[in-house]
């Protein structure tokens, strides 16, 4: 069972308390009704599904209930870091393999 650091609780807590919520940094357009079919497809359907570093959303469901972002290596399953929702993608990753 993984330990995940909640950036709001500022604590590492067991995986059981969290729920994955899909890929992060996919912004919903402020004018979503006016989006083209292609743009909507990219927004809603297309995900990167990388082998390696993924930026994804998690929710501390059975804790503070906040959504936050995490950087995880899908090969090693290691969490490299977590940060609050709304914060930009980190420029540098601690201990990234590639």
């Amino acid at each position: 069972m993984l330990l995940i650091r909640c950036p709001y609780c500022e604590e590492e807590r067991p995986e059981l308390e969290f729920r994955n919520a899909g890929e992060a940094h996919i912004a919903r357009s402020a004018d979503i009704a006016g989006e083209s079919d292609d743009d909507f497809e990219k927004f809603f359907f297309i995900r990167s599904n990388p082998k390696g570093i993924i930026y994804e959303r998690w929710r501390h469901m059975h804790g503070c209930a906040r959504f936050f972002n995490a950087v995880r290596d899908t090969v090693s399953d290691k969490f490299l870091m977590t940060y609050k929702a709304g914060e930009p993608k980190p420029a540098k990753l601690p201990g990234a393999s590639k």
Partner: protein
Amino acid sequence: MSGALRIPGAGRLSQAKTARFSFDGQSYSGIEGDTLASALLANGVHLVGRSFKYHRPRGFLSAGAEEPNALVEIKRDAARKTPNVRATVQELYDGLAAQSQNRWPSLAFDVGAVNDIASPLFSAGFYYKTFMWPKAAWKSLYEPKIRAAAGLGVAPDQPDPDHYSARFAHCDVLVLGGGAAGIAAALAAAETGVRVILADEQAEFGGSLRFESGAKIDGQDGFAWAQAAIARLKALDNVRVLSRATAFGYYAQNFVALVERVSDHLQNPGRDLPRERLWQVRAKRVVLATGAIERHMVFADNDRPGIMLASAARTYLNHYGVAVGRNVGVYTANDSAYAAAIDLKKAGVDVAAIVDLRDNPTGPVIDEARALGIEINFGRAVISAGGKLRVTSMTVQPKNGGGERTIPVDAILMSAGWTPSVHLFSQSRGKVAFNDETKRFVPGTYAQDCVSVGACNGTDGLSATIDEAYAAGAKAAKDTGAKAARGTKPKVDASESWSRGMLGAAPGAGPDTTVKAFVDFQNDVTAKDIRQAVHEGMRSIEHVKRFTTNGMATDQGKTSNMHGLAIAAETLGKPIPQVGLTTFRAPYTPVTFGSIVGHARGPLFDPTRKTAIHPWAEAQGAVFEDVGQWKRAWYFPKGGEDMHAAVDRECVTVRKTAGLFDASTLGKIEVVGPDAAKFMELLYTNPWEKLEPGRCRYGIMLREDGFIYDDGVVGRLAPDRFHVTTTTGGAPRVMNHMEDYLQTEFPHLNVWLTSTTEQWAVIAVQGPKSRDIIAPLVEGIDMSDEALPHMSVREGRICGVPTRLFRMSFSGERGFEVNVPADYGQAVWEALWAEGQKHGATAYGTEAMHVLRAEKGYIIVGQDTDGTVTPNDAGLDWAVGKKKTDFVGIRGMARPDLVAKGRKQLVGLKTKDPKVVLEEGAQVVADPKQAVPMKMIGHVTSSYWSENCGRSIALALVAGGRDRMGETLYVPMPDGVIEVEVAGMVFFDEKGERLNG
């Protein structure tokens, strides 16, 4: 006396009490502290099982967890039968009853042994080849027969009456293995004051000190030192000592799972003790002190009962006081077997000969054996063993060939060397490295915060082991922030040490032979099988493993992996590291399902949710149905009514007078804040800004893709406060959906969301008399149609308690939903019920509720919709705010496919024969005469008998459904085609006049 082979003065059990036990119905006596294995051996019993494939007689190979052969069934009672218990691990208790397995009719005469004679048919991979044709025979003949013949032991056929507990634990240093190394590491860590857990799989700590008679530490016999050290550790507040606890899985971030066998060793465990306890430990540092396992020699018929590991024979003698034979032979490729010969000789057992594969080894143990007058043969091999149910002789030959000599023996003690137990290290994703000099895989690259010490790290000798372990324990503690240790390192005064040994097949079992020289006892894999796998094209050791099953089954190759690998490497002509080691996976030893499941079974498997009104419904004899975790009253049968009659009566009574319905399970979310209306605008398709406080609206929630996600009636209590209801099953995901958007997409909105599902009990009162029932109990709310019209909400009091009174209807009748704090739910229900009785009202359940709503064409999300239905498909376009510029799903709804013609639309279906009730899920076709497979144009989503309509009614999703009004369609069923007519969705009171009726 507990067995003829118990040596007076030997072993450590002399103070203990006699324990009687039985094996295959025969009574024996042993001593408390024995294992089943030591007690049987004390009684001269070696034959305890039949092998998996060839049904060969088998005895004890080991004295520990690595045992591949001695698997028995322990039976406490009809429900407490445990198959495949290792007799070498099972502790004896008075009254223990054990049975041998995999034999019929008896252990000594087993019909299945014909497989041994027919063994050429069952060589490696035989089941991949033999049963290939005729193809049809696999399912009907081969598979059932193989399944019946396969497997060891019989699973119990009754529910497990025992209970199992689970604990989470955290520590700074977790030490796995309680031999000399583990104890030294635990002492060093514990003395710094950090939190330490020390665990060992055995009942007693000490590991190999159980048999190493030559070890002296701090002036004491090694085993006595271990017990004293454990007593010291147990006395420390910062240390937890777990015996009978096997670390079976090492997972990410130093998360280790252990199973503690709490009561399998007790005669009468009592109901308050769990059978086993699962420990889930998170440690900052882990010290692996898992020791090493001795390997057997691979020679012809090396599986005869009486042939065992040298260290096992030593354990039986030095710990249990049992001689494994009266005249033993020794076959070895390293020094450690000499110690066994010496100990047995000193105990008065005849040692017929030591056969040593090495040419001219020297050393103190060899000198000592010679001094005791034991015959030693260097450069020779045991090429076969005589006997069937028990070994009777060993045949010796110079290792490069020459004259044979047969020596009578009743046991053979063997040692090919020691294999470091890197199982847990490997599970931690560490990479092992092959030491070419010592021919061992040892821990190489670490992946987690752990360290290996002692024999599992390839460290030889007690002194070096304790030095290494003590330093590692201190460092592990320091790494977690501890100060320096205050204690002193244990001092080794005397020790044993032994050198390497050999891997692979011994002489006489080489490539040119066809003898049965077993590599893996549990799976009946011989050296020949491994070679055959390579000859048939297996190159990777993982393929060799799967083709031969070497290293599989319950012992997971603890004794066989290295031999198998060496033989494969030799046959491939490659060095061992290039062939590679198979992956070690959890569990290290078999783990019961019970310990993994723990308390999560029966009623504790999943929570059962009951409403405040549940006890009333139960007392009325309601039949309940499961809706998610909820128990909901399904119908209330009266005087012998069946479901059909009860539901008909409930439906008719609601429309004629009134009915009470427990709607408490509806999801409820309080949406509060200055931006509450803005938030509602974004999350629902409907407009909310202009909804006046005190009014309600039916809301539809979409996902971003434009499909219906949930629905429910929403009441606006104040400009900044909405009482939102959701479907019963949808409450948690709707809450999650709302929180997601509020936190991540619309964080600028000042809104709070609170789940209030369990705070409000909800009593629906529906029917023409509903107002008459409620009004006498209500204070502070004007109940007139003018003051409280359909789709409005008021706060006031009912029966003296606060209420949110909704005027709304899910039946099409004048209706109300009375929300009261859940604690008052049953009291208010009973008061309303008493009023209702005056008018002849009924209580109704979920089935009648479904029928009533279907009569009105009200949909149920999840039944009439399936995640691919848009508001337009469901005929709910009117609920989508046309002037809105944004809400979740607004763009998805406009996707080309979602606005295309011919989509499935929700319509009513009327069977031509009104008595016929369609099946929900039945497919709809336009032409019943077409060839199968027919083109399906839709399916029935809801279907009921409607007593109020006097006919069956149904809703269905049908392609282009709204353009097919009046069209005849067909529902093909196994016993004929049903004709239906497409109709509107409303079957009763089409004009909706009864809402105010």
